[in-house]
């Protein structure tokens, strides 16, 4: 029983892994083209940016909120950094570009944090609002011009062709995988082993109790949203590097894939629950479906609907399980239908 429970994982990570394995087997059976290195490499490549975003969404969800402004922050920060560089002709270097973007991202995220923490407003509605503001400011005051590869700072452009492993004909592992993996480990470590990280879980578990034991809730939340903003910016720059262009119109609109991945990864929208491992698996699942529907003969127009169905199925099963669990216990004082 206990071994089974451990296999299942605290947030059903085990089940998710099983689903992924089943899906992989099914896809391999449906299409011989599936089980090739190139499928694997493209899965990794397409998961990198969503994973970074998903880590940010995970942090917010663990603290009990939901963030839909991360994509706007990502492209705002990345595009601003690139546009400034290409406009001024100064190449800040790869590290410099990251730094500028991270600072911008942290500032924008901090703005979210201040409004949410200081005034205790619903996070979904606030971030919907700031998403509009960020995107609007970017396109109106910073730039609406598409920056093509030729106009990217040379260091950023060069980073686009840096590979860890390059197997001609089969694909490559991009060098940007290194920072992505490091950041993932960093977030995992922070959530698990720092007082700050445990504090995020505590706030998500019970804000009032957190305040009473002396956690500085407002400060923690503001810091958290700054961190999430910086993560978004980090993802934004990697997106630019991988795509070798900077398009201010991109990214915004793809939020749902990320949120779906995090929710499927076992994070609770009510806060206090969620893990980095689950999130990684969730991202892989969504990308697996997004990338390979066509391979198994489903037209690509189904992509969006498929993610929607996946999300609904995932949360539906969770919700039904909660309803059953609470009807078994003697009291349902908390309405499951909120």
């Amino acid at each position: 029983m206990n071994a089974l429970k451990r296999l299942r994982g605290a947030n059903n990570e085990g089940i998710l892994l099983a689903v992924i394995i089943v899906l992989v087997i099914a896809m391999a059976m449906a299409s011989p083209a599936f089980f090739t290195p190139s499928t694997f490499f493209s899965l990794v490549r397409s998961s990198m940016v969503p994973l970074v975003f998903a880590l940010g969404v995970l942090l917010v969800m663990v603290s009990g909120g939901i963030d839909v402004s991360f994509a706007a922050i990502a492209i705002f920060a990345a595009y601003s950094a690139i546009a400034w560089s290409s406009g001024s002709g100064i190449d800040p270097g790869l590290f410099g570009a990251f730094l500028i973007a991270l600072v911008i991202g942290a500032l924008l995220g901090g703005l979210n944090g201040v409004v949410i923490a200081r005034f205790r407003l619903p996070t979904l509605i606030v971030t919907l609002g700031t998403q509009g503001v960020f995107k609007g400011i970017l396109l109106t005051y910073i730039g609406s011009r598409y920056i093509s590869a030729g106009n990217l700072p040379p260091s950023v452009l060069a980073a686009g062709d840096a590979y860890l492993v390059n197997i001609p004909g089969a694909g490559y592992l991009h060098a940007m995988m290194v920072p992505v993996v490091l950041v993932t480990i960093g977030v995992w470590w922070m959530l698990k082993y720092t007082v700050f990280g445990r504090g995020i879980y505590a706030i998500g578990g019970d804000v009032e109790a957190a305040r009473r034991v002396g956690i500085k809730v407002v400060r923690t939340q503001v810091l958290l949203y700054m961190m999430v903003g910086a993560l978004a910016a980090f993802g934004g720059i990697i997106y630019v590097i991988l795509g070798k262009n900077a398009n201010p119109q991109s990214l915004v609109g793809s939020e749902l894939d990320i949120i779906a991945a995090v929710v499927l990864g076992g994070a609770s929208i009510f806060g206090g629950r969620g893990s980095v491992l689950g999130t990684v698996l969730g991202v892989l699942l969504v990308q697996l479906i997004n990338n390979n529907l066509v391979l198994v003969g489903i037209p690509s127009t189904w992509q969006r609907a498929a993610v929607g169905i996946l999300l609904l199925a995932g949360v539906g099963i969770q919700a039904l399980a909660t309803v059953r669990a609470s009807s078994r216990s003697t009291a349902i004082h908390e309405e499951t239908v909120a």
Partner: protein
Amino acid sequence: MSDSRDNALTTANRRIDNSVSSLISRIQVKRGSGRMVILLLVTFAFFAALRPGIFLNPVNLQNIGVAAPEIGLLSLAMMIAMLTGGIDLSIVSIANASAITISSLYTAIATASGAEAAEGMALLIIVAGLVVGLLCGAINGLLISVVGITPILTTLGTMQLFNGLAIVWTGGVTISGAPAVLTSIGRSTLVGIPALFLILLAAAALVAVVINRTAIGRKIQLQGANAVAARYSGISARRTLMGTYLVCGALGGLAGILFLSRNPAASADYGSSYVLLTIVIAVLGGTNPNGGFATVAGVLLATLTLQVVSSGFTALRLSDYQYAIAQGVLLVGVMVFDQIQFRHRRRASSVTTSQGAVPAAPGSKEDGQPQ
């Protein structure tokens, strides 16, 4: 066993001491529509003064009356969802699904048996659009009330689903064609007032009556005010939530019909900026996003205000993006303002509570709304 003990006496006394504190997390300030009337007049006067030539032009005013209805209907739907403490992010996708249904049915019949036959069946086709709206609403209602998924996740998922199916259906391109009846309604006016605007007024009146004057409407309000107390008063959450999202679906379907009345073309990604806009309007109109309070008049006035701002921005040659900035600032600003005002008021009103004490911290968990 332990749960019921947990919920019994343990919490009762604390709840009494904190009764007010749980409320600070609700940003509920009872606002009359008076504030919205003033805001509408001020924005109107502002733009009229800045660009009288363009803004006060009858064509511009007429345009406001034609563009506002579809947004107004969607905002009313958002308001009703918020009234129960939920949200309907899928509402624009529902409207598009309805518009696409009508447009593609019409085109299909027109190509198969000629335009005349299609026009003859116009009413049936339009009803089909409404039915699709209701169906989408029923799916939301089912997932929320029976399966028990929170409204945010449900409608986030169905937004994607409805939108995704619309893409599958249309192949991602704009399809054109709509019954001529619709186009003519879109163009007709009654004593200078666009027919579409009258449709909005009629729908709003109906919604107001349902919410305030019928048993189900009052139950919807109570459900949003306190879901647990509603349950203990014999109000069935299933029925109220189902009803709520069905009404949302119907309003979405109607909005889809208005889309086509203005422009006989439908696409899966029409009105992608409307989700934010409808939330802005609902909140500006005095809806409490945590449930329990909303007024139809407030939402109507907020719709007009936003439309005035939109057309004012056009008159000033400001872009859609600047309009988006204005929406976001307005949304966050209104909520912050209400929150400050609410805290202020609460401090003053705690005089009348038996506690005589204001707890500093809100139990934001207590309303269980992860927004």
